Each structure stands twice: as C-alpha cells, then as structure tokens.
C-alpha cells in the first residue's frame, strides 16, 4: 500500500515532530547534562566567590610581604651605634606601621625556627649538620605567612640532619 495515501499514517506523522526517537533521547540527555553542568558550575562559582571575597587581597599582600621582609632585614643589620638614633627609630616605627596594616588584614607569621619540619607549613632549602636533632628547623631563610587560615607563602627553612654527615 502507498503510505502517502494512508490517512492514518499521515495523521500519525503529522502529529509527531520530525525527530527520530534516539535523536530525541540524545538531545534530552544533552539538555540534562548541560543543566547539571550549569548547576554545578553555579555552586562552584558561588563557593569561589565567597573565597575570593575573603582572600581578595592575597596577590597584593604577597607583593607587599617582601617589602616587610626587607624592612626586617634592614633592622637586623642595624649598626649598634645607630640603635638610639631618633631618625632610625622613626623608620623603625614605619616598619611597625606596615606590619600592623598587614596583621589587620589577617596576616600572621608561620613559626619555624626550632619547630619540626612540616611540609604543610615549610619548604626545605637545605639540610645542614647541626647539634639539633634531625628533622628540626635550624634556620629560617625566608619567613612564611598565613592569611587568615590559608598559607599564602610557605616558610623556607634549613633543616637539621643531626650531628654527623651521613651522605
């Protein structure tokens, strides 16, 4: 029989969209997937946004920290005869001021010297022979910092390997 003249056939095909069944399933699946993707994306973006807000200043603070480090180094190297100089004291005060600004933003130092080496907090740059027990930090080469609860710079440290060379 000629399908074209079969009324029932025409009715059936007329009412049906021109899509094969598996095509439809495919499109449906794709739609579901995109929706799920979007939902997950939305949730993650939300989380990121919250974190972003909290740690908005991280990049800037990371760039200011070396200045604070250098200030501290400058003071460490301060010649004895200048220690009571009022002008020097003024500069010293500026260092405190800078530090306070960063502390107010949530910055805190990671304690390193004398502590046990911990990969979560420290980065080892050298292993040294020393009187302190192995695995203990002997010297801090570069200060580490936390911003609120997040470590933004790991402390760079030298770690003791004990009294004797054992290489």
């Amino acid at each position: 029989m000629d399908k074209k003249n079969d009324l029932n056939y025409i009715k059936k095909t007329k009412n049906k969209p021109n899509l094969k069944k598996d095509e439809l399933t495919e499109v449906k699946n794709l739609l579901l997937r995109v929706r799920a993707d979007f939902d997950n994306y939305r949730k993650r973006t939300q989380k990121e946004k919250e974190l972003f807000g909290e740690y908005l200043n991280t990049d800037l603070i990371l760039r200011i920290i070396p200045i604070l480090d250098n200030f501290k180094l400058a003071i460490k190297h301060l010649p004895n005869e200048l220690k009571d100089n009022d002008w020097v004291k003024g500069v010293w005060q500026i260092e405190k001021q800078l530090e306070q600004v960063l502390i107010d933003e949530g910055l805190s130092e990671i304690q390193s010297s004398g502590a046990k080496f911990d990969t979560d907090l420290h980065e080892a740059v050298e292993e040294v022979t020393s009187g302190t027990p192995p695995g203990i930090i002997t010297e801090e080469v570069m200060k580490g910092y936390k911003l609120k609860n997040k470590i933004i710079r790991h402390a760079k440290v030298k770690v003791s390997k004990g009294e004797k060379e054992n290489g």
Partner: protein
Amino acid sequence: MGKIIGIDLGTTNSAMAVMEGGEPTIITNSEGGRTTPSIVAESKSGERLVGQAAKRQGVINYENTIFSVKRLIGRSFDDPEVQRDIKLVPYKIVKSGNHTKVKMGEKEYSPEEVSASILGKLKADAEAFLGEKVTEAVITVPAYFNDSQRQATKDAGKIAGLEVKRIINEPTAAALAYGLDKKKDEKIAVYDLGGGTFDVSILELGDGVFEVKSTNGDTHLGGDDFDQHIIEWLIEEFKKDQGVDLSKDTAALQRLKEEAEKTKIELSSSKETEINIPFITADQTGPKHLNIKITRAKLEDLVGELVKKTIEPCEKALKDAGLKASDINEIILVGGMTRMPKVQEVVKEFFGKEPLKGVNPDEVVAIGAAIQGGVLGGEVKDVLLLDVTPLSLGIETLGSVSTKLIERNTTVPTSKTEVFSTAADNQTSVEIHVLQGEREFATDNKTLGRFILDGIPPAPRGIPQVEVTFDIDANGILNVSAKDKASGKEQKITISGSSALSDDEVEKMRQEAEKHADEDKKKKETVETKNMADSLIYTTEKTLKDAGDKVKEEDKKDVETKLEELKRIKDGDDMEAIKKSYQELSEAVQKVGAAMYEEASKSEGDDKKDDKKDDEPVEGEVVDEDKKDEKKKK
C-alpha cells in the same frame, strides 16, 4: 554516567581539565593550583606526599623524592635513557627482572605505581572540584612513546582507579584544543618547551584524524635551564660589583631564584626591569644590596643558546616528515616557556609563519584531552555550538545616549528586562529606538528598528514605569517589547538578522568603538552630568513647591540662589563648575528636606516626599523626541 576528565601527565607538571557545559575547564587542585608538580615522595615519617607538598621536602629527602618518573615509565632497565637518568637523579633506580623500579622509603616501586600516585591525587582533586565521582580519563603521552610506554601509562591509570578511555598524543591534544580537527588536510607543527623537556612534532591531518609524521626534541631542556642561566649571571654580576660570592649562600640563592623567575615573566611583557634585592648578604664592611637593571635584550642574550638549541630538532623533525618549513599550515606553542617573546620570534622565523596563540600554553594539552574525553562521552556535539551576540544591543535614552541592555559576547539565547521612565512631565508616549553597536551615542550606532509606545497616563517625569525587554532566541532573532506597567499597554518589534552582519562589519564597528572610546566617554559624562543637573533642578523646584512655608525663609533663599546658579551654568561646558554647583544645591536641598521631615515626622504622607528628594536621577529615561522639544520651549 560520570565525566571523563582529560589529564596531561607531564614530566615536571601535570594538569587536568573537563568539559563543562560544552566548554573545557581547567580543574584546579586542592591547593588551588592549575598545575600539579609530578613529584611523589615518602616522607621521613613514612607518609606518602604528592605534588607541591612532595616538592617542598625534596631537598631534605632527596633519596625518597621521585620526580621525572615519566622518563622511566615503560622502559627496560638497559634503555639508554634509564641509564642516563641513573647518573642524573638523586633517588635510586634499580633493576627488577627486565624492568625498572625506583626506591622510595624501604620499598621499590614501578614507575607505573609512582605515576599512579600522581593520577590518584589528580583524581581525588577532580572529584572535590566536580562534586562527583570520577572514574574515567583520557591521558596524554608524548608522540614518541612506544606501545610499552603507552601501556604502562594506561596501567598507571588503572592502579589509580581510573579507566583510561584513551591514550592520546600530546601534540594531537594541543591541536584539538585549537579546534584544528575541524579543518581539513593540514600540516601542523607543535613546539612544546616545558619545564624540563623540549618536544617538536609534525602532524598531518586528514579526514579529521591526526597522524604523527615525525617527532624530535631534547629530553633535558626546559624552563628550569633558563632560570639557572639568569641566576648564574646575577651571581657573576654581584661578584664583579661587590666581590661577594652568593653561590654558597642558601638564603641569597632562594631570593635570587624567586627574582629570576619574576624577571623572566616581567621581561615577557616589558623591555626592561630592575632586580632589587636589598640586604642580600653582609660582610665585615656591612650589608650588601643587589640592584641590577636587566633589559629584554640582555635576557635574550643570556638564554639565546638555549633557544637556539631547539632549532636543530625542528629541522630534523621536518626532514623526517619529508617536509619543508613552508609546508606547515599551523604552528602550535605548548609549555610555559613559549610565552617568552624570543622563543615565539625564533619559532616564527623558522617556520615563516605566526604561531597560534590564545590557549594558555601550560593548559593546552589538558584542554585537548578534555575535549577528547567529551567526544568519547558523547558530550561534544556540533549541534550544540552556542552562538554569541557580536555587538551590544540597546536603546536610545535621554541625551541620545545608547543604553545597552545586552552586552556584546553574551551567549544566546538570552533575554534582559529593564525599567525605564519618561523624561518630561505628562509625557504620554515613548519612542523605543533599538540600537546595535559599542559606541556611547545613538547616532554612532546602527539602528535596528524603532517603535512608539503611547497611551501612557499623564504623570510627572520619572513616575511612569516602562518595562523594556530584549529577547534573542537561538537563531539570533531579536524581539523587543515595551510595556507600560500602569496601563498595561504593550508594543513590540521583531528584528531578524540582528547578527547577520558580516565578520568584517562587526570588526569594523568594534574597532570604531575602540578608537572613539575616550571621546565618547567624555561626551557621555557631559550628557550625564547635564541630565543629573536637570533632574536635580526638577526635584528641587518640586520640593520647594511641596514645602511651601514649612521651610525657613533663609533656607529657602539659599536653595533658590543655588538653584538659579545651577540653571544658569548647566548648559555650559564647564563640567567641574556644574558638578560643584550640583553638589552645593544638593546639600542645600537636603537641608530643606531634613527640616521638612522633622516638621512633619508624625504625618506619613510627607515621608514619601522626603524620599523623592533623595531620588537619584533615573539613569536611562526614555526620550520622546516631541516632548524633548516641548521641554526646550518651556
């Protein structure tokens, strides 16, 4: 079905990506990094560390910190590469039957097991990122990997709990990331200069399939060598200048290393930078500072030989493929070092063609792997290519400003509704002038259509609410409707082919906008300032009228003087004066408002009036041309 992630399991660093909503996205690791060091260690306390944590303790635990294990995977112990590495790495490489193993802690591990640790961390981090289980992956390998190396990589995935749906070549992944599979019959060169290795591959594309024609490279050349050259130069310069040798000073070296990396990056975008390390060291004479200027030319001089070293492998690869440089249709850059202008220049010179840019060279391989994963998972289909509006769409508002409703590059289908108001008292109709383009003023943009919404009940300006909706469907057909909320009257227009501009036209319009951005901005500011002044004059007059005798005479006088002043200068060109006068009047009228509020604080009705005084000028009032004229006549 879960997602198939794409993993670039690198020699130095690894990265991963996934298809999300039809687009590849880099998956960040648990520390927030976009790449993860391919390093595994067993700490002194017996803990297994992977990635950054392993890297941080490498120096004090070098025997048990395994890096570059990719160089060993799938190779027999007698393989020359393995024999070479035995001399180079601080950890132990041992023979186990015919196979190679590495020693970590008390035990020996196969390279597959070590790679599995890296993949395991990536898997866990991906699960945290996606919030769902991840069990399938596409992993990339260098094009020169043989069957045994590919199989070993697959096994590493299996050990990590990943079903490796496919192993694909790194250069192929890079080509996929650039969508080159959509082209036909091309010859592609992939230049991959990473942290520790250099690879060049020649691919031939036919019928959507990539065939690797040849590969070459240097397994021990990468970004780390570049840093080292800079550090050595700094040490030398400092010695010349200050007579102190920094090469034995760990603390100084650390600071030099950080600065060298920073310098390399800075000199990719600027021509000159200053390396500034105060108090780098001290001797009997006191503290010493390092302060050296370095130009891009100097840097290129320092690393020139390293860049040159990449040319010979390129020549060989071409020769092996039986091609000339001019036969190559596309060049893809992979690896962070290819950001360096000198590298790009050398590549361009060699192939005589500009390399493709746009995808982050550190991430391009992982992105390509994710796209392959998407294809395998049935997620990547041509039917769902999303379109974007090439230019912004908006309407004309007061002062012939073009107010955008839909910004350019918005993915369609989309719709946006904003409420506008009238610009004059008793204005009963508004004209909706639909515009396309980036310029700030209506006259500079393209008119797509216009219609009038009338029958708005007479009311003071700013009171009627006309809701304007822009709706673009997936075919780029734009429907604009305007509805007066009070009367419910609605008008609309359908504009088809709003995106039917040719690419050239779009580009031209975009460039025009860029060119005129500054003057447009200034002009718009002028119009906005005048609009604000107008609006304040209007509310001030209304406030004074409403206030009647509730205001002290002196306050009223003060407001009136300032009002006259603003009226006098508002059409002039001195923006600063207008702003100042605006500010003064605004403060004065606020005082009046406050006084009124106090007076009538018990009566509710006056609250509203007080609110109105604070009413900021409506940003985009719809202008009715006739009414505007009328107002001028006033």
